């Protein structure tokens, strides 16, 4: 790499870090402004002298039962939905990228239509259905729609990945006597794992991020996920949002994301940069 390119990469790397972390630093900083300072007005990036709250906002938020419960709900629901969705999507994407069969177009079209459908329009009828089935305001009641709505993204991402895999290796395995299923499991799964991990992360974040289902298919803390809980968290005065309290809640709700990103990130790096997928 030339020196010029190297400087460009360094500048780019710094830009990425600033881009990604500045708003995070801001919301952390905001979470340390005292609630009194927020009410009277406290402009600026950092809390002013005397306008700091210490850990007060955090202890207030963590002391809140509903908030703790919402974190638990979000982690459980998102993880289960991700796991199931990625397994199902991997099977489907393999078939789409690799096999010839009737109905392939139908699958892709259905996936696309579902990925596009305005969620707001579905919640009314879903509300009715879930009450009939008795899964309204339960984990299952959110896991099912999360799976359905993450499948299109997972299928499309994975089939784009699977296109690029050197399939001759699978054919070689089949020539050596492996069945289609064996070739899939023994040869393709290890090669496809990097793509699957990327799809898993995209899926998890989709479920974690959902707002519309979260508010409309739950009514109590039994299943209410974080985004909905945060939006209900308006404090005593609905006309003056408790910005710093909300910020503390936002930071707490971001911690699980950072943990999961750290866990998965190595696998993505290994997967995306290894030569395994390259032709």
């Amino acid at each position: 790499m030339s020196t010029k390119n190297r400087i460009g990469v360094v500048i780019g790397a710094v830009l990425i870090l600033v881009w990604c972390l500045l708003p995070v630093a801001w919301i952390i900083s905001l979470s340390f402004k005292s609630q009194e300072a927020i009410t009277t007005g406290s402009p600026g990036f950092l809390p002013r002298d005397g306008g700091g709250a210490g850990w007060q906002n955090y202890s207030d938020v963590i002391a809140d039962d509903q908030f703790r419960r919402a974190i638990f709900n979000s982690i459980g629901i998102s993880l289960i939905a991700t796991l199931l969705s990625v397994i199902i999507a991997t099977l489907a994407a393999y078939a789409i990228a690799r096999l010839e069969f009737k109905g392939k177009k139908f699958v892709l079209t259905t996936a696309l239509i579902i990925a596009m459908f305005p969620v707001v329009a579905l919640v009314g009828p879903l509300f009715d259905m879930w009450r009939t089935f008795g899964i309204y305001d339960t984990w299952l009641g959110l896991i099912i729609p999360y799976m359905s709505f993450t499948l299109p993204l997972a299928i499309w991402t994975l089939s784009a990945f699977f296109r690029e895999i050197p399939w001759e290796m699978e054919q070689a395995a089949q020539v050596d006597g492996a069945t289609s299923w064996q070739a899939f499991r023994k040869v393709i799964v290890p090669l496809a794992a990097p793509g699957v991990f990327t799809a898993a992360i995209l899926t998890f974040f989709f479920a974690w991020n959902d707002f519309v289902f979260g508010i409309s298919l739950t009514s109590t803390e039994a299943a209410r996920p974080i985004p909905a809980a945060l939006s209900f968290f308006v404090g005593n005065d609905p006309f003056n949002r408790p910005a710093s309290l909300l910020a503390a809640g936002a930071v707490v709700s971001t911690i699980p994301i950072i943990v999961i990103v750290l866990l998965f990130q190595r696998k993505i790096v290994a997967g995306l940069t290894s030569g395994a997928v390259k032709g």
Partner: protein
Amino acid sequence: MTSTVVAPDSKKDRRKTAQMSDRSKAEERLGQKLVLPAIALMLLVTAFPMLRAIYLSVFNYSLTAPDDREFVGAQNYITALTDPLFWETTLNTVFIMVVTVAVELVIGFIFAMVMHRVIFARGVIRTSILIPYGIITVVSGFAWQFAFSNSNGFVNEWLPFLDNSFNWFGEYGSAIAAIMVSEIWKTTPFMSLLLLAGLAQVSEDMLEAAKVDGATWWQRLWKVVLPNMRSAIMVAVLFRALDAYRIFDNIFVMTAGAQGTESVSFLTYRQVIEQFQLGIGSALSVLLFLSVLVIAGLIVKIFRVDLAAARQEG
């Protein structure tokens, strides 16, 4: 491209036709088995609600007076399509979509190239880029709303040409800019991750060969890198554009639709959830869905990639 039932292998070798057709039958069964769970699940949650939305759209139906439901045919569609508010909202939504996706594509590609080439602090950079993506949109909306706020924010202080009391949410231009900043910040990582995945598939040997042949950096980018990652670009643009067109959370949190910043999803939500107008709300949903279909069709056409035909093309 029409769907091909015959396995391509059989075209190459006609002597084995009988044997191959057995094989392609097995392949067909396996393929259908593998997609069955996905199809079943997707239809379960969407087919009925979708049909119901279409059904309700031809009624004058309000949840506040469910017994007064009456069939009105296309009346809801006519009402929506002749209301200037619908067109203002649509225009605003298209504006948000085009600007955010264009900006994100450029920034996301730059980020992807940096992440692809960077040799230090890879872990830190890739972890950082996943943070905005993982952060809840509602949180991003709050963070940027407070950042732009003139009582508790920092943006006015940091921008030398702005008065510190400037109210970003007081007029359309600045309010929509604030919404777009939140949207772009939050979703650029999605773009760059998918593009990075595409970049990782571009053969280093090919790039090396182009370099040996004297291609400049710019030529290698346009003649080797971009054409080889077309399907990754399509997936990224397609999903982001469709997602941007349905923008809801950021507007909900940041302006609640004030100053004409309302999107089509938000308008629909107001009709269904706030005003209980299920009839016209469903009609708006169907219109929203149709316009999204048109956008998807356009993008697939522009990039000329057919995932189902991928095998033949490759």
